[in-house]
């Protein structure tokens, strides 16, 4: 095959669009708009927060969070429920998403790597979290959707109190 025989597929997403999307997603999470956050995921999406650095599989090693659509819907419904004791009082969070790079692009979307810092405040205690986001974003009917989201926390294997608010 020569270089001229095939034109590269046009990438539907550029870095600026992806960054704008990540900022929007972080805002939904910080504002507790979890139903709108859920709506950003494709029907077959996975949301994954590994428990080990460099973890390769969510199926043979435990994860801080690993949700398919059914579990993610359950998680979000619980967050919005009136009797979630671990969110009374509610956490307040503030996230910064930065260092956005496109790691791969193809005809339907991109794999986007970014860095985040999140502070969680609840009941007179503030917890810092930081790490790397990996978003597999796809363009569907003109809207950006999350097909996979992986969150690598720098302290994923540390002893921690419960994690309730998604990263």
């Amino acid at each position, binding site marked *: 095959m020569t270089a001229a025989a095939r034109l590269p597929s046009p990438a539907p997403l550029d870095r600026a669009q992806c960054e704008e999307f990540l900022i929007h997603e972080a805002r939904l999470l910080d504002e507790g708009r979890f139903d709108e956050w859920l709506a950003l995921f494709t*029907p077959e999406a996975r949301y994954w927060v590994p428990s080990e650095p460099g973890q390769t599989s*969510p199926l043979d090693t*435990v994860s801080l969070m690993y949700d398919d659509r059914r579990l993610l*819907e359950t998680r979000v*419904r619980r967050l919005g429920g009136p*009797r979630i004791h*671990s969110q009374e009082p509610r956490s307040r969070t503030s996230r910064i998403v930065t260092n956005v790079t496109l790691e791969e692009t193809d005809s339907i979307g991109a794999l986007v790597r970014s860095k985040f810092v999140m502070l969680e405040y609840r009941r007179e205690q503030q917890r810092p979290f930081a790490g790397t986001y990996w978003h597999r974003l796809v363009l569907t009917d003109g809207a950006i959707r999350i097909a996979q989201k992986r969150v690598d926390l720098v302290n994923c294997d540390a002893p921690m*109190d*419960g994690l309730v608010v998604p990263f």
Partner: protein
Amino acid sequence: MQSNGEDVSPLVQPARVHRRLYTDPAIFELEMQHIFGVAWIYVGHESQIRNPGDYFCTQVSRKPLIVVRGADGKIRALHNQCAHRGAMVVASDKGNTDEFQCCYHGWTYHLDGRLKAVPLQHGYPDDFDPKNPKTSMLQVPRVESYRGFIFVSLASEGRSLEDFLGFMATSLDDMLDRAPDGEIEVAGGSFKHAYQGNWKLYLENLCDAAHPWFTHRSSIDAAQQQKDDVYSDGSGEIAIRQMRQNGAPYSFWESQVGIWTYPNGHSFLGDYHDDAKLVAAMNDPVFRDYIGAMEAKKGKERTRQIMEVRRWNSNVYPNLSFMSQFQQLRVIHPVSVNRTMVQTYLFRLKGAPDRMFQNAVSFANIVNGTGSLVLTDDLEIYNRIGLGLASEGAEWIEIGRGFKSDLPDQHGGRRGKNSTSEIYIRNMFDAWRSYMLGERPGMSASAVARP
């Protein structure tokens, strides 16, 4: 037993205990000495250190230890402290090595703790002798395994591990019996979660059948309302079932679930999950394959007997809780009177289909995980008890549910009238009192919390 010159035994009374048992740092220090410094403490499983030189680090009674398989194949536990200036010698959680070397002045030890080499040996005093035990990393006096489960005792004398476990050894048997090949191994990583509360709260919750309806309401409602016709990769199936099951009415808990207690503070909740109807259902292909593997190795009759053992959490006082049906195991590490760390492990059943282990992983994520939909509400309870007790309001904590309705058990224990009895908490305080008074637990005629 004295705390600051005071007798602590009146703090445990029939059907109630004093709040200071959860809040007083002096009592915590006594517990570390008289309970964690004496009892058999679970540290790990032999599959974590299969080969000579394999080791892992842990803490017992807050003391950093190395559990290591020696060149001779024997398992030992060493205090993780250099005999020279006291530095912690091994800094990695686990690994394989042929010697331990201190990073400060290079003192180097054999795997059994004996000193191997010292740089600049001529500079030490004339009576310096590398063969003197004083120059060794100290061995923990007693290390014993029960069918691969490793326990240590910091006390050089005392009852055997077998005596200590008593009938509860059958719960460990149950974990092994469920492996078609008769062997299990630690796999799948671990969780470490921590809370601001006393270590006893954790064990006191694990056989508490009265709390799910309230504590876990948020995940019960969320799971019960969840539609099943959305995309699932199958990994959440076990978790969804468990959360829904937590919403069983009180009548279910009181009629279908029982609680059994045994000497030395041990207990289990039983008859909860029925392998035939809840865990995997006979029409589940994974479970069918698993049963097939079991029957091929053990025969139909033996397989049926094994599946009939339906124990939920089995608790070995003071630091171990495990559940054979999903191969989960939790180790409790007291940090301070108001701080506890718990590490959760999984086992792989040798000879079982891979999907059985994936179910164990999935179950752990949702029920025992740091970010789970279930455990996070339990952690909130431990934190709130820590906060509530700090108020120094009511002096006494009630542990009287089911009091005076306990029944004898044919294996030398007592069982609650039903699963919502707090008998297992009273049973733990019987052991607590015996340890703290220096009695031999289980042999005391005057066990205080007994009706």
